């Protein structure tokens, strides 16, 4: 690994919004290279740690999945507020992906169909604990400023590795043929 070591470990936070955890799985696919990675970074809020909220001094936020409900928006704002660099990882984060295919239908019609009970009408849950769905699913960059995009569904372990090593070494990440994929 040829990246010059940073003076301190960079703090990385990750989360999955309207995604399938596929991108996080792919992250783990970088295999033993994760050991190199933990030399360079320390994980903050992330499904792989148990930290519930971002520390205010995160360096990098990596987000999988688009924005489909109110809670997603709040989490995304928390990331933007606390991370110097925000990365949209995966097709869903970048253009809404599979979840956004619901956008061709009206959410009211979808719910009416899902919660219709034979003979008892439609009962859509309205507990304040349940985050409300947005009218449409949106990519991250329509809600906050995103600094980098890492496409793929999911991006391959190699693509993630190349991307992160570029980034940690202070280079603008580039993927090139074979690593850049929208699927």
């Amino acid at each position, binding site marked *: 690994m040829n990246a010059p070591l940073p003076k301190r470990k960079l703090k990385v936070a990750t989360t999955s919004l309207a995604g399938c955890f596929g991108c996080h799985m792919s992250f783990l696919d970088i295999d033993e290279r994760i050991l190199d990675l933990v030399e360079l970074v320390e994980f903050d809020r992330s499904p792989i740690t148990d930290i519930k909220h971002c520390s205010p001094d995160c360096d990098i936020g990596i987000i999988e999945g688009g924005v489909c409900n109110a809670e997603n928006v709040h989490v995304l704002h928390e990331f933007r507020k606390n991370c110097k660099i925000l990365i949209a990882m995966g*097709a869903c984060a970048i253009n809404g*992906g599979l979840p956004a295919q619901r956008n061709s239908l009206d959410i009211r019609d979808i719910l009416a169909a899902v919660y219709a009970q034979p003979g008892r009408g439609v009962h859509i849950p309205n507990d304040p604990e349940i985050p409300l769905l947005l009218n449409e699913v949106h*990519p991250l960059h329509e809600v906050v400023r995103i600094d980098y995009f890492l496409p793929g569904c999911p991006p391959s372990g190699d693509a993630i590795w190349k991307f992160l090593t570029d980034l940690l070494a202070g280079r603008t990440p580039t993927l*090139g*043929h074979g690593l850049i994929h929208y699927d």
Partner: protein
Amino acid sequence: MSDPKTFFLDEEEIPFEEGQTIIQAALSAGKFIPHLCYHPEFKPHGSCKLCTVRIDSRTVTTEDGQSVKIPGRAAASCTTPAQEGQHVESEVPEILDLRRTLVQMLLVEGNHYCPSCEKSGKCMLQGLAYDLGVMDPHFPQYFSKREVDASHPDILLDFNRCILCELCVRASAEVDKKNVFALSGRGNTKHLICNSESGKLGDTNMAATDKAADVCPVGVILHKRHGFEVPYGQRRFDIAPISDNPVQYAPVKEQV
């Protein structure tokens, strides 16, 4: 026979025959210029503008000795005839940036969910996006509501992915002599229509063997019961980037 005429593409000398367009000459000479609506078998029409180049920029020296570049005119290389001694810029930052923006415009205009698209891996739009290093669609998505037409027994139309290149229109009119496809609307309501009162493809005389069935550069016109046949990693643009072997896109000799 006299020496072939030549022009310069990014400072490289390219021979051409009288009447050839810049893109035809470039591709024949093995130089790739991105394109979507150009097709070697059809008359160029110049709508996607991916093939835009700059022609004959000049550098002048000002009184205080500074060199100033005066940009030449921008033009679609698929509709611009090559001319002797012309200087054409293609792989320069400004033009590459322009092409990225155009790709992004197409990506937000339609609904392009590549993971669930049968064309993924051999789609020209996607292939070009990769080649240009487009990492995101950048602009707000239209999320336009478009239809799927499954009325035809052998062919499926998914209008979500149409980039309005009109290749199917041209193929059906010029090769198949059927005029199965046409355009209606205008501006941001422009859309592809089928030649039937119901508007359905199933009510036209389209056949799976038509040229128009195989000409779509993206994933709109699809053969039913064929999809995802080539495994991930072995598809056309997995193996080689779109810009590889540009001669594959060159006009066949007789057609020039």
